[in-house]
């Protein structure tokens, strides 16, 4: 019998397990599908990690190793090369591995930290033929950075998410020519700093409001056709441009990997595509927590670690008290005007110490704006923000004082131009 089983040994799972341990949880197990811990950080060899969490700039593998090293001084157990097939409401975990075969493990609490998956060519219904040379940016990243295979010589990137931008630079450094980065939206999906240091530094053109309308090549990719799109994102006839290339990398979004969560009946959020969670990252099933990219896709691993520490601490408290706090009164946080999602979605006042940090994304670009916390149209708090974009997750504090002030069941978070 375990106190806590953590599904996934990437940054979220590692931080959750360590935090649970520090908060008095004793029998903890991390179940990891890969042959080593660290998750996607192992292939993210670029720097820029840890500025918030460690106050210094690290590469992905360095960031992971700091957490993995901390495990050594704990009693936390790790099962590698093991996949979780199913979890149940009463905290049973069904696993499978080459070494141990099928196992049924019992726990008192579960933290879900399975991360996310890349959207593929099928997910965006790209027209054209089906040659080799079209792969997701993350798959290319693994080939180049871990396996040591170069994926192509003349590269086009579709989508301007961070992984795509990072891979644009990486391909140039390894001797490839990156001909274009094509983005459907009128703004980039990645961090501004990555546009500067990955595209601008290497004179890679970024085509905003463009898409791919055709793909040619029999065995290997030979060319793509790019066209401008109108404000309804439909290709504009006559703007087509053919680009000869042998490789197309897709950086067209990430989707939280939630088969386990859905199968056990956890309430999901349509916007984040992750679980609906309370202030302590507990899902609709008490004793099951979720954190990291399985909950919502983050831009920065630092935020994953912080969120996962919260989940781990809450799991430890759940194990020690075994009380069902889920049934207490809660208030709901709604996405108002300008907000694409906000999280946590539900808050139980009794569990709030001083404040809850609300994480949100806006649904369009804002220069200078006011993010306001409202109750039935009345403004309870407001925060001035600059340069908000859908590609960057933002935060505002929801203070206990405000929660105590009035007896409210719902709050709306709204953005407006200043």
């Amino acid at each position, binding site marked *: 019998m375990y106190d806590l089983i953590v599904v996934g040994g990437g940054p979220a799972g590692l931080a959750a397990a360590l935090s649970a341990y520090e908060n008095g949880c004793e029998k903890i197990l991390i179940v990891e599908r890969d042959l080593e811990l660290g998750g996607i950080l192992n292939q993210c060899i670029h720097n820029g990690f840890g500025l918030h969490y460690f106050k210094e700039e690290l590469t992905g*593998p*360095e960031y992971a190793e700091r957490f993995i090293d901390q495990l050594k001084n704990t009693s936390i157990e790790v099962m590698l090369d093991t996949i979780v097939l199913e979890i149940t409401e009463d905290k049973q975990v069904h696993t499978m591995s080459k070494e141990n075969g099928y196992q049924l493990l019992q726990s008192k609490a579960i933290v879900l930290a399975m991360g996310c998956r890349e959207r593929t060519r099928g997910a965006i219904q790209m027209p054209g033929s089906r040659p080799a040379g079209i792969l997701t940016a993350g798959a290319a990243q693994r080939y180049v950075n871990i396996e*040591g295979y170069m994926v192509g010589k003349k590269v086009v990137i579709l989508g301007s998410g961070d992984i795509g931008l990072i891979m644009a630079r990486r391909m140039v*450094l390894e001797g490839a020519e990156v001909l274009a980065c094509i983005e459907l939206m009128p703004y980039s999906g990645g961090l501004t*700093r990555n546009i500067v240091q990955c595209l601008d530094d290497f004179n890679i053109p970024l085509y905003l409001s463009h898409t791919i309308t055709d793909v040619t090549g029999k065995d290997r990719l030979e060319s793509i056709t790019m066209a401008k799109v109108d404000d309804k994102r439909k290709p504009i006839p006559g703007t087509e441009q053919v680009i000869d290339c042998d490789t197309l990398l897709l950086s067209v979004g990430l989707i939280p990997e939630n088969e386990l969560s859905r199968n056990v009946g956890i309430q999901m959020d349509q916007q984040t595509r992750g679980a609906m969670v309370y202030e302590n990252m507990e899902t609709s099933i008490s004793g099951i927590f979720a954190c990291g990219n399985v909950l919502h896709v983050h831009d920065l691993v630092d935020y994953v670690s912080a969120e996962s520490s919260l989940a781990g601490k809450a799991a430890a408290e759940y194990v020690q008290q075994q009380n069902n706090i889920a049934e207490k009164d809660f208030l709901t946080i709604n996405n108002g005007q300008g907000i694409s999602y906000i999280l946590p979605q539900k808050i139980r006042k009794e569990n709030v110490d001083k404040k809850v940090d609300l994480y949100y994304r806006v649904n369009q670009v804002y220069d200078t704006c006011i993010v306001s916390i409202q109750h039935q149209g009345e403004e309870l708090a407001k925060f001035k923000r600059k340069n908000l974009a859908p590609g960057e997750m933002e935060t505002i504090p929801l203070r206990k004082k405000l929660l105590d002030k009035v007896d409210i069941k719902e709050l709306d978070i709204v953005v407006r131009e200043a």
Partner: protein
Amino acid sequence: MAEIICIVCPVGCHLTVDEENDYKVTGNQCNKGAIYGKQELQNPVRTVTSTIKIKAGSHPRLPVKTSDTIPKGKITDIMTLINQTEVTAPVSVGDVIIPNILDTGVDIVATRSMS
């Protein structure tokens, strides 16, 4: 006046640098931005990350980085040297793989341990 975006951290402040006025930086939210803005116009520098071949390791490639920033113009030459290098496992994070690369005073170091 030059307008640039700070790349020191993911906040990405929009900086204005006044070349006429001792490269005075405005628009930065922290002091690192002021230093970056001045440096970027006078002598832009970057950290380079890549991989090198490793024998007998758990993977065929070892991730590495420059231990400090290097002038932007030297990136290509540094990549050439990195691609000519090969090491043998075990390696610990922080181990110096190529000391003082191109006389920059900066080392190429391992960014993970590998056995």
